[in-house]
């Protein structure tokens, strides 16, 4: 019975890696039904959580690799950079995007730019904001297009060359890039 759990976790894996037509119905309900069908819930749930954590770390690696390819530098995940987007949005044409970086914006400590990429769009670049110390605050709102549910990734370069990164999962119901 234990072996039967493996394909389940693998297919969740594929779903979260954003395959075009994921295997259907890997929902909480399906999970609970499976567990009701003979598996001890206590044994299954910790494994499922472990699986999710594994996915999260895998994605972090993807993001790091992508940013390294774009900038040639290794980013640091940081909560100083906040990317605020709805978790689900009905259309992909005008998804609200709010970006905020905690920074005093002085000559000696400021944000140079914030760049936003949507890795699963046909063209991944979204927008880049450049800021000026003393004059502009690193806080912007705009609206973007998303082709499919995905992690939206933002990274900010500080004046000392440090790259901060953050990402957020956004689910869109319709393709905004067609």
């Amino acid at each position: 019975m234990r072996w039967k759990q493996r394909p389940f976790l693998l297919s969740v894996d594929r779903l979260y890696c954003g395959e075009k037509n994921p295997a259907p119905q890997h929902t909480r309900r399906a999970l609970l039904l499976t567990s009701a069908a003979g598996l001890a819930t206590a044994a299954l749930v910790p494994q499922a959580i472990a699986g999710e954590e594994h996915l999260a770390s895998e994605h972090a690696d993807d993001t790091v690799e992508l940013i390294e390819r774009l900038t040639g530098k290794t980013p640091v995940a940081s909560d100083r950079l906040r990317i605020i987007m709805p978790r689900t949005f009905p259309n992909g044409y005008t998804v609200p995007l709010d970006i905020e970086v905690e920074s005093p914006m002085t000559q000696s400590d400021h944000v140079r730019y914030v760049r936003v990429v949507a890795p699963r769009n046909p063209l991944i670049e979204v927008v880049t904001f450049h800021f000026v110390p003393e004059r502009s605050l690193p806080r912007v709102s705009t609206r973007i297009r998303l082709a499919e549910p995905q992690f939206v990734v933002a990274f900010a370069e500080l004046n000392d060359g440090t790259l901060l990164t953050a990402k957020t999962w956004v689910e869109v119901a319709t393709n905004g890039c067609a």
Partner: protein
Amino acid sequence: MVVVTPRVQVPSSVTPGKTFQVKALIAHKMETGLRRDNEGNIIPRDIVNKFICRYNGVNVFTTDLHEAVSANPYFEFYLRATESGPLEFVWYEDGGKLYSLAHQLVVDS
């Protein structure tokens, strides 16, 4: 032909050294270059690729836009000023055309 109209919203007067919000919107279709017309030909890309805000002749906020910015690009950003001066907003369209708007910023003394 769609008329491209830029609009901005700036507070009527601001306190020196305090941050204030600026809203900038341009009515633009932002054609991505990925869509096809009824005959199957690709509709050429036509987007606003750059937006600049200048204060006293110096760039204070610059944005590079790509295809994934929504039609009618809208930005809400925050500036800080110490003296009254002109605020200029410029949108650069593909093909070199630009749209601009000027606004006199009043800073309370």
